[in-house]
């Protein structure tokens, strides 16, 4: 990165054939990714899926076992992190405790020998509305303020690529919403390329132009948020992004435009262009908010799938909507989100109910859902380390 020159605009990021192996496990397995310049890209996935590792590879804080990383067309795989035109907003903020807020923000500028570093640092602080705290130490700031300082410290360097590692994780809900809007506006205003890593799917969908869902070191699906949500390709994406009702069955017949899947004695139709597979055992699904709840058998109509009758086993009020669970024999539990247009639930616990949805709203997956345990296993290295440490301490205490 030439000392002194700001990037004029964001740059492309390209990851080609990246593998990252740690002793004992593979964090990233053959990853190919291309993020166009100036976009807000979200890398979404559960703990341990490899998204933070990907971020660290781009920042230069880790080296890939194999593969290449290109920024703005230049191969930076062998370039040390302090020479890459990339800045990171760390999850823990990592604000230097022995420097003031201003010195923190000016740090990167001074290392690159930029003139007027102090003035530019003040400008960046004004952008996040913290200029009045410039002489404080980071420990004297609240979590939200620290987060904004960390952002200013990174953005002030106008990097070709800005990496955000779950930066909003420690903030409370309201503050998080606020920061989401601010981040988005800064990104569009300054025109940088943002790579945002998060496990919060709502956050990814609201902020990003493109979302990539990562699982076990690979990208399962990538695209615009609406595309990922309304047309998930894999069971993981269908379940990770929002909730889905999934049904597994055999394709019994197909027409020109759709396939018919039989499950639990009922035939369900899915458009071929929304189904990844057209023959054999397939899993199809529909989003809970797309389902209509009926208390009497609905009339048969073309272009509508019906399931039922079943019994309402759970009614949960959550403000905007009410979540119903219907147990349908032969099929299983079906979840319905109904917007609360009226006061009170539409059906009561224990009542008989049918669900129906437009055929066009269904989707077909490329695989089957894994058997999901009741409590998701904590498999990321950080949690394992914490658990081991607790066990150790407990043993030391008792001895």
């Amino acid at each position, binding site marked *: 990165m030439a000392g002194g020159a700001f990037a004029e605009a964001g740059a492309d990021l390209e990851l080609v054939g990246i593998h990252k192996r740690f002793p004992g496990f593979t964090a990233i397995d053959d990853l190919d990714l291309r993020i166009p310049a100036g976009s807000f890209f979200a890398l979404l996935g559960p703990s341990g899926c490899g998204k933070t590792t990907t971020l660290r590879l781009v920042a230069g804080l880790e080296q890939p076992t194999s593969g290449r990383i290109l920024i703005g067309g230049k191969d930076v795989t062998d370039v040390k992190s302090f020479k890459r035109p990339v800045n990171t907003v760390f999850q823990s903020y990592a604000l230097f405790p022995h420097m003031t807020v201003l010195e923190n923000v000016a740090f990167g500028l001074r290392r690159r020998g930029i003139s007027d570093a102090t003035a530019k640092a003040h400008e960046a602080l004004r952008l996040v509305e913290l200029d009045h705290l410039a002489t404080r130490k980071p420990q004297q700031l609240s979590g939200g303020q620290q987060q904004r300082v960390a952002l200013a410290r990174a953005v002030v360097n106008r990097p070709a690529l800005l990496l955000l590692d779950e930066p909003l994780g420690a903030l409370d809900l309201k503050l998080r919403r606020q920061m989401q809007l601010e981040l988005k506006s800064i990104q569009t205003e300054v025109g940088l390329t943002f790579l945002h890593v998060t496990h919060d799917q709502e956050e990814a969908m609201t902020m990003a132009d493109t979302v990539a869902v990562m699982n076990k070191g690979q990208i399962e699906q990538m695209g615009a948020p609406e595309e990922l949500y309304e047309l998930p390709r894999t069971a993981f994406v269908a379940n990770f992004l929002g909730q889905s009702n999934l049904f597994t069955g055999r394709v019994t017949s197909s027409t020109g435009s759709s396939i018919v899947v039989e499950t639990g004695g009922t035939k369900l139709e899915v458009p071929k262009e929304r189904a990844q597979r057209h023959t054999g055992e397939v899993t199809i699904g529909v989003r809970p908010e797309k389902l209509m709840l009926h208390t009497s058998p609905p009339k048969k109509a073309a272009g509508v799938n019906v399931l039922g009758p079943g019994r309402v086993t759970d009614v949960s009020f959550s403000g905007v909507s009410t979540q119903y669970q219907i147990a349908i024999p032969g099929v299983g539990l079906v979840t319905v989100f109904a917007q609360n247009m009226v006061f009170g639930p539409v059906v009561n616990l224990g009542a008989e109910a049918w669900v129906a949805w437009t055929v066009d709203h269904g989707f077909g997956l490329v695989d089957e859902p894994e058997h999901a345990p009741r409590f998701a296993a904590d498999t990321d290295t950080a949690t394992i380390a914490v658990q081991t440490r607790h*066990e*150790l301490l407990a043993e030391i205490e008792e001895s």
Partner: protein
Amino acid sequence: MKLSLGKWLLPLYSVLALIFLLVPIVYTFVFSFNDSVKSNIVWVGFTFDKWANVCDAQGLCAAFATSILVGVVATVIATVLGTLMAIALARFRFRGRSAISLLLFLPMATPEVVLGAGLAAQFLSAGIPKGLGTIIIAHALFCLSFVVVTVKARVASLDPALEEAGRDLYGSPFQVFLRVTLPLLLPGITAAALLSFALSFDDFIITRFNNGGVETLPVFIYTAAARGVPAEANVIASAVFLLALVLVVVQQLTSASRRKRLAKLG
């Protein structure tokens, strides 16, 4: 994989630094096998004699025994008094807290000559004859602060929730102290006692001002230094060193193997 010189510079330096630290130890150990007569400076020949007949050197074993005795008694005094103070400082609020912290800190900051001379002057003006008793008193004094520091750190790392759980489960304050606090503090208290003993065993300056003729091991070595320290002193020192080393290594290995066992289970 590129092997750059820079990467290996620091580890190499560290190894050299550690070797440097060990030079006198190795020297002392080697010369404990020296077939010397009076002075142990020139190498004469290899022998196990000194190890076999350690107490042949006049006054050496007596001095060694004295050092052990002083160490044990002073450690007991310092550990008991110090543990009580540490618990008080770590757990309670009271007026004069900072003054007491400062008071405890001062003996650690006072040069040994000053401590030694002060105590000696005190004993002199009080008419107390110097001997074993005054040595023990002096040792307990300077060990006290170190015990407080060590135990206080251990108390600070104690999860108060454990004692609260003890109270929640119907333990009286005294029972909680006896069955929860004290056992949990035991590693810290042990560490403090070992530190105290080590400090006492190796102390020379303060002892010299207050011993009134009674010889501890360091005093013996000092007086012998002028004419020549017998190789038997090296023997005792090496034996003590090896014992301490073995203890520490065993302790480290057991905690490491404990970690490995846990990792296998998890």
